[in-house]
């Protein structure tokens, strides 16, 4: 670890490489986290199967691209498929969880996560997958820093998607209905908003966002049926750091997490990267709790 730290000091270009890689993956985290914040804010449900939605979106895209579907269309197909799944899950399961004890919703969505990861592993095999782009890389500083073109494309697509989503929430009627329901569901219902439909729309929209994020991620990063949970934890951590309804915060926290993970993966070795994510979650929660405790308030 210390040896790696020294390498980092001797070769600043390597640090730049890690920084760029971290920022590029951060956009995918931001998209998934934004979806989680949306569902959390509107329905008060922490969607534990968030990461499985991301993985499923990735698998849909990989399968489509293997069949010769153009990548951009594959992203759209993944988003549409996940929207349908999200809508179906809402009608059968999630609708019963709204307004209930948080324990039930965490356990039920954890159950959905287990079902999805097992189904993916059964039908697609528990192997790392990636949709090969064949786009190559740009090199800087005499080849010391390499940036895969596809990662930049994924980053740009995530930004575009996030911006579109933010506009949808800010300007469209349905976006307004979602925000109104998040603020005050009873008043929103009294004003004629069908809150149940809004909950369903929000949940399905979140699934579609995750699907698109996963589809984009699958073109630049490997996906695996069992690595969904780490995406859930990342999203949760980002939302906790940023706070609900703070889009700028989500982006900063996500990019920060991407950079932190990129450096941690180098310093501690890739086998500890997931452990680092989970340990960072605990550290973040403990730190926030410690700050709140000074005011005799608690994380709840």
């Amino acid at each position: 670890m210390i040896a790696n730290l020294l390498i980092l000091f001797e070769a600043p270009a390597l640090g730049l490489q890690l920084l760029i890689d971290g920022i590029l993956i951060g956009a995918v985290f931001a998209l998934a986290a934004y979806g989680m914040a949306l569902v959390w804010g509107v329905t008060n449900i922490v969607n534990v199967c968030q990461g499985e939605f991301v993985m499923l979106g990735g698998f849909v895209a990989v399968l489509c691209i293997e069949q010769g579907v153009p990548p951009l269309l594959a992203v759209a197909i993944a988003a549409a498929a996940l929207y349908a799944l999200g809508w179906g899950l809402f009608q059968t399961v999630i609708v019963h969880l709204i307004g209930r004890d948080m324990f039930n919703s965490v356990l039920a969505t954890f159950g959905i996560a287990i079902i999805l990861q097992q189904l993916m592993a059964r039908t697609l095999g528990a192997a790392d997958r990636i949709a090969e782009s064949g786009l190559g890389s740009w090199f800087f500083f005499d080849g010391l820093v390499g940036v895969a073109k596809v990662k930049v494309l994924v980053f740009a697509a995530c930004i575009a998607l996030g911006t579109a989503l933010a506009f949808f929430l800010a300007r469209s009627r349905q976006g307004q209905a979602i925000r109104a329901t998040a603020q005050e569901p009873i008043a929103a219902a009294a004003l004629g908003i069908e809150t149940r439909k809004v909950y369903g729309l929000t949940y399905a929209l979140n699934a579609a966002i995750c699907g698109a994020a996963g589809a984009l991620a699958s073109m630049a990063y490997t996906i695996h049926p069992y690595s969904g949970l780490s995406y859930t934890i990342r999203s949760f951590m980002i939302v906790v750091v940023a706070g609900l309804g703070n889009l700028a915060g989500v982006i900063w926290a996500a990019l920060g997490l991407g950079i932190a993970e990129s450096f941690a993966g180098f310093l501690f070795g890739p086998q500890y990267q997931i452990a680092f994510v989970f340990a960072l979650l605990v550290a973040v929660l403990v730190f926030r709790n410690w700050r709140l405790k000074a005011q005799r308030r608690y994380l709840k």
Partner: protein
Amino acid sequence: MGTPFALTPARLLLLAALILCGVVAPLLAPAYQSQATQLLLFIVFALAWDLVGGQMGYNSFGNVLFVGLGMYVAAIVQVGLFYDVGLYTEAKGGGTEFVFDVNQFLTGLALGLPAAAVASASVAWLLGSLVLSMRGHYFAICTLGLGIAAGQVAAGIPWIGAGSGMLTPNPPAGLGDVGLLLYYLALGLAVACTLTFAWLLSSRFGLALNAIRDDEDKAEAMGLKTHAAKVTAWVIAAAFLGVAGAIYGNLVRFIDPTETAFAGPTIGVWMILMALLGGKGTLLGPIVGAVVFQITKELFWTYLLGWQRVALGLLIVAVAVFFPSGIVGFVRDRLSGRGGDSEESVPAKEKSA
């Protein structure tokens, strides 16, 4: 009605009958001995989860941390007393050099189980003050993270076999049926756990835990030392989980860091499912839940091979969504017309009103 957890003569009789069944069971149905041992350990898992989750309202998703810790600590003690742990894991515990005679094996077990309890309890005590002041979602997700982080860390330490896992000592041939020994150890642990919890929950301590579950701020305002009570309950649960994990490790023989020891998506969530299925916040519930769950699980494994985990996931969702009061709660609600309102049925009515 009297205190729900007091050991009345009728309950003691029932318990004695159950213990007797447990003692003779392996003689009657030896073919199911290992499943029965697992069931007894599952009872301890479910009870220990329920002490903190059901009784105190702190729904932990990472209790598997203490199970895995107990498993590893016991295995390390069992091996480390006689051999070098690093060399042992490097040789995958096999070969002719790492042989345990009867005396060594029993000494290892006798010291390994208490060590597991002490290690799990100490870690729970250290973590307790950090995580037990979080509530709701934060506590749930934080504990989930802890359980999985532990598995990932264990998978990175070569001394305990890293990702390829660790074997518990090979039982010596001269010892006879080690499975039977583990069965009786598990039975003893399950009985000890039930009796300890019955005693705790019928005392003022049990009332304190329920007060914390119902309204922690009010409980604190009434002068209850909520923090001390929470940490105590968490430490007691962890100690039992640690010993159960140690026995479980010796039962399955092979400790995989993420699949057996810190198995969040299997044992970690099963213990919650068992407590919920039987009835959260009751003493009988987790026991009933564990029995029903173990039978269901074995049936799934037999008839749905390959899809059993999917089926268990469906069961988790179904119970969490449609059957949250569990078997004991359901029966109690049915009987409540005759026996007056039980504690559990009152909030249910308020919700429907």
